[in-house]
């Protein structure tokens, strides 16, 4: 067995210090960011790097919600949850935009370890989107046309080609598409690394500071437009970035704003380490599955099986049925894993934007109030955070696409499947 690479061994972690995270909250800041997940920490980093005065407030510990509980995959291929089944031209335009954004996000991720000067466990492994039936193989062909148009190169594999190239999979699969840009990183390390570098660049990052209310200061005279009351004191700011993930709608509601989002608890299984057999990440075009072998040899198996909501502060609990259904799909495509033992299960809460398109930018109705929220926010987080920071500092080459505007809303409806 190849010695599993264990992160951190002999390599210092890039983490913010406990003293910094507990420092008193300043009474004022140009920008206040609510949420210490990947989105919030990355926006803080890009803003601080451009010299903007910024403070992050996080109600718990950093990176404990979606950003630290996801499977860490960069999926760029159009996936099951993105296909509405409606295949309208609107739909097609959205998929095109999405595919382009994901292609750009890939480029960004592969430069991130250099940018932050630390190990984030980034691996470009390539990824297979599998089809089990001829109908699903047709869906692959259709989605590939859109990907091609968007500049995301994917390769179509016949059943025979798949068998030859991936002999560890079930023999009777109907085919696959392969995208060599796909890969993964360590979700446990990315947001804390952004936070540490943001602090170095002058940002304040404060944990255990939950936002309780947001007051709008109309005629305050000064630059401050928001008074944000947290459990660790009140901070006034000219601009507010809502990076509260699954609680973004709750936070927006404090300012009378509505967001077209829903949250779902999702299930993940992880196994004991085994000898390395699986390089590409696996997804299924017709069933809920993501499956990959991490650098330390463990298999991480997810794909959107539900977890059971619990009243806070309890975390969403595991539904055994989700473990059982998820395991069945995994074994359907990779039967050789039958004797590999699951050692852990966990859950995380994911935000789904109703039209599956990120919400990035400023509310016209409430100037100074910015959103940073994406459905596949691990993949997109660093890139959209940079784009937002560039837009906020007026330096960016990127004007944010109108499709991401917080107020595109009226046309949004429940176009998601299920």
């Amino acid at each position, binding site marked *: 067995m190849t010695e599993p690479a*264990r*992160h*951190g*061994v002999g390599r*210092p*972690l890039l*983490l*913010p*210090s*406990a003293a910094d*995270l507990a420092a008193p909250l300043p009474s004022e800041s140009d920008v206040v960011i609510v949420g210490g997940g990947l989105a919030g920490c990355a926006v803080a980093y890009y803003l601080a790097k451009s010299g903007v005065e910024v403070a992050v407030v996080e109600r718990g*510990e*950093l*990176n*404990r919600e979606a950003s*630290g509980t996801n499977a860490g995959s960069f999926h760029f291929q159009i996936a099951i*949850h993105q296909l509405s089944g409606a295949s309208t031209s609107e739909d097609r335009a959205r998929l095109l935009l999405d595919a382009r954004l994901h292609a750009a996000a890939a480029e960004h991720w592969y430069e991130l370890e250099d940018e932050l000067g630390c190990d984030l466990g980034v691996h470009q492994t390539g990824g297979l989107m599998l089809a089990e039936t001829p109908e699903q193989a047709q869906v692959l062909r259709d989605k590939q046309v859109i990907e091609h148009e968007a500049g995301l190169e994917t390769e179509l594999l016949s059943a025979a080609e798949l068998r030859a190239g991936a002999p560890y999979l079930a023999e009777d699969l109907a085919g696959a598409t392969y995208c060599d840009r796909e890969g993964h990183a360590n979700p*446990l*390390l990315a947001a*804390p690394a952004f936070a540490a570098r943001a602090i170095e660049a002058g940002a304040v990052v404060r944990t255990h500071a939950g936002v309780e209310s947001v007051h709008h200061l109309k005629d305050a005279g000064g630059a401050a437009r928001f008074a944000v009351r947290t459990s660790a004191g009140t901070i006034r700011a000219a601009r507010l970035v809502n990076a509260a993930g699954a609680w973004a709608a709750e936070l927006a509601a404090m300012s009378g704003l509505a967001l077209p989002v829903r949250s779902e608890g999702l299930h993940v*299984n*992880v*196994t*004991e380490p085994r000898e390395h057999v699986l390089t590409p990440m696996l997804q299924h075009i017709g*069933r*809920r599955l993501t499956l990959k072998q991490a650098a*330390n040899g463990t298999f991480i*198996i997810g794909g*959107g*099986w*539900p977890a*059971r909501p619990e009243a806070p502060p*309890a*975390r969403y*609990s*595991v*539904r*055994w*049925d989700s*473990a*059982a*259904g998820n*395991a*069945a*799909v*995994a*074994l359907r495509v990779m039967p050789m*894993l*039958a*004797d*590999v*033992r*699951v*050692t*852990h*299960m*966990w859950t995380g809460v994911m935000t789904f934007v109703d039209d599956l398109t990120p919400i990035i930018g400023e509310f016209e109705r409430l100037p100074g109030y910015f959103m940073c929220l994406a459905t596949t926010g691990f993949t997109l987080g660093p890139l959209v955070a940079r784009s937002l920071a560039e837009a906020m500092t007026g330096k960016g080459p990127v004007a944010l696409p109108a499709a991401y505007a917080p107020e595109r809303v009226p046309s949004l409806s429940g176009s*998601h*499947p*299920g």
Partner: protein
Amino acid sequence: MSSRTQSCAVLVVGGGPAGLSAAATAAAHGLSTLLVDERPSLGGQIHRQPGPGFRVTDARRLGRDYRRGLELVEEAARAGAGLRTQTGVVALRSSHAVCFEEPAAGGGGGSGEIFEVKAEQVVLAPGAHDRPVAFPGWTLPGVLTAGGAQALLKASRVVPGNRVAFAGSGPLALAFPAQLRHYGVNVVLALEAGPGPGLRQVASLVAAGHGNESLLADGLRYRVQLARWHVPLRYRRIVVRAEGDGRVEAVVHAAVDSSWNPVPGSEETLAVDTLCVGYGFVPSNELFRLAGCAQRYDEDLGGPIVEVDEWQRTSVPGVLAAGDGTGVRGAPVAVDQGVLAGLGAAAALGAVSPSTAEGLAAPARRRLAAKERFRKALLSMYAVGPGVYRLTTPGTVICRCEEVTRRHLDEALASTADLNVVKSYTRAGMGLCQGRNCQRQIAALVAERAGGAGAGGDGGDGRTGRAGGIAAVEPTTARPPVRPVPLGAIADDSIRDEGLFVRD
């Protein structure tokens, strides 16, 4: 819900003295009762029956612990309880349990089977495991825990090593080397971290002794046996490190103060090929945590212990607890708590009237009260000292599954005091043992930073759980599976994934 579901009135988890007596009691009241134990044989820690493949030819030679176990097993079977070994509960939600039956050893049984049990009442009697203590060299081959060595002896009849040192503390610290010696092991040194019995302690033990005569006698018997076998027994000393190239070759031990902090200059080295470590036991509390049962902290009872009422009911309706899992108090207490839990479950299901149950419970309650007096008297002798959690150096591996050193943990601890976050930054606790061996040690490191209170707090605060110390450190989130389970056993094809967002 899956097709693999069965139901019963009472499910008992754990086939030690507590579980066996609970099952016998519930079944004797006419309740359909199923007992499951993940090990290949019943009896639990001390009454463990020999494993499959061993046939008992002379029960007398196996000793009274074995015979008592056999009695308990036969009593439960006679009462009509179903008894299943190699079947562990891996997930639990109120009184619904997910069980994993391991494949029969050697016999091509595939990945094993998952089945769900919907019980009306569940009695959790998972027992305890060795209190993990990390020190330089503790991961060397040849270093064993007392429980591990005992399992080897009882289930597989394997005798460890040729020159064995024992280091530990607590009422069993004498029992254990005596037992090893009984099985023919060459014990060259026995260390007890606590003080030798002074006149005052002996007096208070004797005063509390009524109803505890056999425990007193046991203590005396072990001491006499060790003396007769010329096993040197030294008080107030602990092993500070184990040394060796690829395997333990020597132990370095030192005198300790009353908080178990080593006294500089008192080190001695002894050549050995095996070191058994037994600093007492800690309740296996993962099922209680999964079920959401209220707990309190008492280091002398093993740390986090589940709260129970006079019928052994936990804070979660339908979930009862008995035995070492509720605080480590020994086998006789486990049996009596099992009786109370069995009666409690029977009363809850209307199988026995409250007044009858009260009458049946009276003898067990009397014995338990006497044992509790004795235990409190013992405490003054065997209180766990916080120094035991301070033996590591930066290079010491603390999470052996993921090979995480204290140096690496210190980096994470410089950023957070939250065990979940430490786990995510370092992977400590993510391995096969699921944190059973490292989380207490890491909690002690957190407590140490938070105010130097250390394990128990030198003032004893953390020990009794009033404030500070390990007691104040929140454990990581409890998650299934409680034990590793093969994907092939978990997978259920009947659960389909139509619709992306299913809700209960």
